[in-house]
Every structure is written in C-alpha cells, then in structure tokens.
C-alpha cells in the first residue's frame, strides 16, 4: 500500500484502473471481487451483512497473525511457529483464568508470554544465526510438545466470564469486537510499517541485508523487535480464539502458519523480501475465509475442499504476479 501511494505520484495521469492493476497486491483485490460476485450469485446466504461479518470475524485470527507475518516476510524471513505460539498463549490464558487469576492480569501474562516466545525465535535467528525456517520449525515443534505435555491433550474449558467472553464474542454497535481489535492493530502496525524507522529497517533488511548492515542498522535489534511483536500478535490471536470458544484446546492454531503465510503472499507481500502490503494481507486472510465459507455455503463435498483451496491459492497469487508482470513488461 505504501508503495501504491508512492507509485501514484509517479504516473499521476495514468488511469486509476491501470494503477490498481499494476500495483503490488492488486491481484488480491481482483480475486476477492471475482469471488464475492460469484458467491453472491451462487448462493443467497452469502451476501448478507451477517454473513459478511461472520466471515471477517473468522478471518480475524489469521489476519492478526498475518500482520506480524507481513513484517517478517518483508524482512526476508519466515515464521512457522505462529500457530504454536497462538496455541500456547491460548492455553496459558485459559489455565490462569481457570486457576482463579484476575482476568486482566492473565491477559497481560499471556501477552508477555507471546512476546517471549517471539523473542526466543529472534534470539535463535540472530544469535545462533539459524535459518528462519529451521529455527521456527524447531520452536513450533517444541511449543506444540509443551502444550501436549501440559494439557495431556485435554482442553482447558469453562471460561464463562463475561469480560473474557466479550473479547471475541462481544459487539460494539453491530460490529463484532474482534474486528475492532483487528482494525486498531492494523492502524498501529500500518503506521509502524510505513511511518517509522522500524518499518523502514524491516524493509531494508528484506531488500538488502548486507547493505543494511553496512549503513549501520542494528539488524539483530530490528529482527528481535519484529519477531517479538509477531509473538505479541500471536498471543492476541490466541486469546481471542480462546475467548471465542471459551476453551483452550491443545491443537488450536495447528496448521495456521501455512494459512497465515498464504494470506500474506496472496496479499501482495513478496517472499523475496523488501516489500510489504499490510492491507493486502488482511484482504488475503478474508479471502481465504471467504473461500472456506463459500465451500460450506455451496455444500461442496469436504473431500474437495483441499483441492479447491490449493488451486485458489495458486490462482490468487498468480493473478498478482501476472498483473505485476504485465506492468513491468510494458
């Protein structure tokens, strides 16, 4: 988005459509539009305010983690542990509340725990110099294991406290509260990405890590910060998910890492680093939730879901690539 804004200055006179299509992440908007039109025609249940809000709410957990993933991927990294951090933070908050702790204190502890796990990822990557993929694969496995050891696979449930339920189930006006949380986080991280040093340094590392080092950027500090913030976002997601089902299950967020990465890349953030599209990520997450919602509404046999979702990811990302290619070829 930041790029789009700036691009627009460049060819001030080019038509809006062309600009939109050429911009990084335009594919996702196109894909989303096509999907929404198709589903609106195909089923009467789809295009209702209720359903739209439900879909967005279903996308919230992935979208929130996607914000962190966008930073990480823009920095040229990857994080496979997001789902596991979500899971363990959910268990932590549930166990603490169930154990009788004050809810707000429990929330804070869970958030801090999320930051710690992110920080550990950061340490492995910066201090032990492990490849991101491997470091976070390791923490994913360890955290999932710890959840198992702690819960023995049995959920922590019975969290019927109104304040806690409100987090994921509440409304402000007709807008679900988690959507508001998402928007607030998007706002904060949008500014962080495009209006602060942190964002610049993140992008610069993804763009050319050697050069970033040569201009004196403290790369380790930036990476630690980004992974820590991502841990925080995962903790928020984990808390919301726990609040939503009033229980923390051992396998919560299993496999989410792939959804989150897919949403980020569909949204136009390039895996080669140096470019970020935060708004695109959110749309990407909503897109993935919409596909699943559509599959359910259209009564597509569950056996086919994976095929459709896989094909959809490929199509959505190629749209982006193709429109970018057309742009650069002209």
């Amino acid at each position, binding site marked *: 988005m930041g*790029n789009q804004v*700036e*691009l627009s*200055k*460049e060819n001030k006179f080019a038509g809006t459509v062309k600009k939109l299509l050429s911009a990084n992440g335009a594919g996702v908007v196109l894909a989303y539009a096509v999907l929404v039109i198709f589903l609106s025609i195909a089923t009467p249940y789809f295009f209702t305010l209720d359903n739209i809000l439900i879909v967005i709410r279903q996308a919230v957990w992935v979208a929130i983690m996607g914000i962190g993933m966008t930073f990480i991927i823009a920095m040229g990294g990857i994080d496979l542990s997001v789902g596991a951090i979500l899971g363990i933070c959910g268990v932590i908050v549930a166990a603490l509340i169930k154990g009788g702790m004050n809810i707000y204190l429990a929330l804070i502890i869970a958030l801090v725990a999320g930051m710690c796990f992110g920080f550990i990822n950061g340490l492995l990557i910066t201090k032990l110099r492990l490849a991101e993929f491997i470091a976070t694969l390791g923490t994913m496995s360890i955290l999932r294991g710890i959840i198992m050891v702690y819960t023995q696979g049995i959920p922590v449930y019975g969290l019927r406290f109104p304040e806690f339920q409100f987090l994921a189930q509440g409304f402000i006006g007709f807008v679900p509260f988690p959507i508001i949380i998402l928007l607030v986080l998007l706002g904060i991280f949008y*500014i*962080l990405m495009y*209006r*602060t*040093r*942190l964002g*610049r*340094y993140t*992008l*610069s590392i*993804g*763009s*050319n890590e*050697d*050069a*970033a*080092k*040569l*201009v*004196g*950027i*403290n790369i380790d*500090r*930036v990476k630690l*910060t980004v992974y820590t913030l991502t841990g925080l976002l995962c903790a928020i997601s984990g808390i919301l998910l726990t609040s939503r089902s009033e229980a923390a299950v051992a396998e919560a967020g299993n496999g989410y890492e792939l959804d989150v990465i897919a949403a980020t890349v569909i949204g136009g953030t390039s895996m080669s*680093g*140096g*470019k970020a599209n935060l708004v695109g990520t959110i749309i990407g997450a909503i897109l993935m939730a919409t596909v699943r919602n559509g599959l359910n509404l259209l009564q597509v046999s569950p056996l086919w879901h994976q095929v459709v979702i896989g094909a959809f990811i490929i199509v959505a990302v190629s749209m982006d690539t193709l429109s970018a290619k057309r742009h650069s070829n002209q």
Partner: protein
Amino acid sequence: MTPILSMENIEKSFNRVPVLEKVNLTLNRGEIVGLMGENGAGKSTLIKILCGVYPKDGGDIILDGKKVNIKDAEDAQKLGIRTIYQELSLFPTMTIAENIFMHNEIGYKNHKGLIMPLDIKGMNRIAHKVLNDRLSVDLDVTRRIEEIPLAQRQLVEIARAVYSDASIIIMDEPTTTLETKEKEQLFKVMRDLKAQGKAIIFISHHLDEVMSICDRVVVLRDGHNALDERTSDINMNDLISAMIGKSVENQYPKVKFELGGPLLEIKNLSSRKKYEDISFTLHEKEIIGIVGLEGCGKNEILRTLFGLCPHDAGEIVYKGKGLRLHNIRDAMNNRFAFLPGERKVEGIFPIQSMAWNTTIASMEKILTNRLVSTKKETAIARKCVEDFSIKVNTPSQLISRMSGGNQQKVMLARWMQTNPDILLLEEPTRGIDVNAKTEVYKLITQYVQQGKGVVMVSSEEEEVLGICDKVIVVRNGKINKVLDAASASLEEIKYYSVNDSADDTEGASC
C-alpha cells in the same frame, strides 16, 4: 593541529595470508586524501577496517586524538564516518529518498528509537534538493532503486554520504560508472565538503582524478605503505612507480588492423522509449565504442544485442544473415558474449570459487565425457590468472574474497573463455588498476586480431579513444555522431554528448 584520523600500524590477514602490514594513514580536517594501489593492494580492506566491517588484527585507530574501538558499522557511523563502498550497497525495492535517508532519518521528534514517527514528505523534499542542488540531477525521489540505471544509483549512494553529518567521508571508487559531467559534479561536491572542513578519503584508479582533486596521496603496495606525499610535490610517473614499481609508457597499446568484412549490421533498430533508429556496422577486427550521457540508451542498445532488451523495429544482420535475438541463448549460440556492468549483482557467484566463476559460461571446456574435470577447470583458471594478472591465492578461493578489480578481471576472463565472435562489454575495465588495464587492452587487441569484433560501452572517454576504432556518440536515444577514434578528441566526444550534431553548422560558424 591533531589530524582528525590517524590509522597506525594497521595489520590484517585473511586465513593467515597477510593483506595489510603496518599500514599508516592520516587524515586532516578539510583534506582530501587519495588512496591508491594496484588491485588487491589492500585499499578496500583498510577502509573496511575503518568502517567496522572487518576487525583489525593489530594497530590503532585514533580519531581526534582519541583511540577508538570500531566493532561494527554502527560504531563507525556514530563516530562520524560515512562510506561509499566499492560495491554498491543500496536497497533495490526502496525509493531513492528512503535510500538516501537510510539510518539517518528525519522525524517529528528527535530520538533514536525504532518507533520515531518519520517526516516522509520532508525527507522526500530534502532528498530531491540534495540531488538537485549538490549533484545537479533532477530525479523523482519516489522511484525505486531497481527502476533507475546504474549511474544514477551511484549518485544516490553519493548523495547518501553527502547528506549526513559525517566528518569523515570515504569513497571507494565512486567514479567508475560516472560520466564526465557527473564526475565533475562529484568533484564539486567534494570541494564543498572540504570547504566545510570535512575530511575525505578518495580511492580511484584514475591518476588524473587523484592528481586534480586530492591534496595528498597515499599509495599502498602489497599491503605496505609505498608513498605518502602532497600531490603538488609529485607527478604521475612517481605515482605509478610507487604503485607498481615500474613506469607504464603506453597506456593504450592500440594497434590499428586492416578491418575485415562486415560482421554485424544493425539497421534502424528501435525500442520504444529507449532508443530509435540505430544503425551501424561492426566489421571483423573492429572495436566500436558507444558513449553518451547516462540514460541516453547506450546500455540498452548493447543489451539488445545480447537478447536482454526487446526491440520493436529494425533488423540485426549477422554474417550476412538476419538474426533474431529473443533471449540470451540465441545470442550465445551465435557466439556473442556480454560483460555486464554491475559486477556484484549481475556478474559474480559470490559463494563459489574463482575457478568456478571463470569457467561457468564455458562449461563444455571442462567436461570430459560430460563430467566436470577438476583438472581441466584448475588448468583453465590458472591460465587466466596468468593472462589477466589476477591476484588470488589459489583458484579455489571464493570470488567474494577477492578484491574488486580482481573480480572484474575474472569476469573478463570468463567471457574470453567462451571464444566469442562478438564481445559486448559494459564498462570493461571498471575498477581495474592502471597496469592491469594495459594488459586487458592488449588481450582485447589480440583477440580482435583473430577477426572478431567488439562493441563496448564505457564512461571513460580516454579508454574509448585509446582502444576503439570508431566511437558512436548517442544522445537521447539516437546516434548523434560517429567519430573516428584515431582523429577524434575528448572535447569532441563531450561536445556531441550534450549538443545535437544538427547544430554543428551553427556551432562551427560561431
């Protein structure tokens, strides 16, 4: 007055091979010091120690009379040292303004944290102003680096160093891709900085540049101090002999051969927005130089001949037959070879060995029964080390651990290995030292003698005049003037680079 910087008895070795031995360098406020030496003499290593890229093995760095310990680039920056590195260090996906202000941002509040809100409009404005006022280029600072040509990138890198509160500015071969005009701008900026009391270390292989801009020159030879004199007290020959231990009589060993038949005929070639109506003929045994201002389209013309840029009109006739160049392999199958200008990005395979880098474009030469023969590979690499006087410990040394100029020689060697009929060169001697340049020119001359042809793009007019037969001056995407190198002068090239030849009659009449 204490010098602002003094490096004393600096020592450095890589894998037990000494690169710097008790090297000294002092720098005063308001002084420009030239740092010279052959390829691999240790210049870049010395300044990288100063910038915190490499730790030193011994010696002291004294800033303003205080001994300092520079652990990393951040330390160096805090101490007021800014560097333009030999290999560009820009951020391709980011804008010009973002690059110029990288790690030197302006914000609404003034604190050092990562979360400071940035004044983006203000930075764009200042970036534009810096480029415009100090370097006299008018660039859209919101364009991304990957969208602008190499020479402009170099300017951005210069602007980044200029716009900083650094008191010491180091420039490692900043002029290699600059055109005359931009070079002059750079020199003007350097004088301004000097007037402000800043100190500059300037590395270049161009003696004339060093003699004209520097107050003092320090020469390194094989990692030792070989000379430290005021430029006013010495002449070029002193410099050369300090660097290589002998003098060079004829820098350009041009032999004019009888041209053969036409090899490559370019007819009315056009590419939308890049260049139009380009026609010329390359004969056997001919070397053609293409010159022109940055952005005039000369590189695109050359790249079109290697199948890298599409053209939408016109014809390429090769050895009498029409040639379609859709991609690189079309060009390579016709025995074309292309040396790209941006070595680090488009040339070297950094984590592979020198031998690997030498033979990668001509692998059939090192295959026995379709399998790589390490023996053949090493033999070829050793021969290239000889021919191009490459400084390398063994052919198995990683190329990224060789000096810039030596990497450039490997690039040339790589392409000569392919036995091309047509050699397309972008800045062939970029970063190569005086002595080795002569060797390279000799090799190119020997090579055309076998009935081959060379087209080169260079920002060094002397070089073009020195070894080419014909010089094509391109201006705004069109051939403005074709000069005979034997009779043309530097002034003519400069003149036609900036003035339309259609104005000639008027120009002459005045």
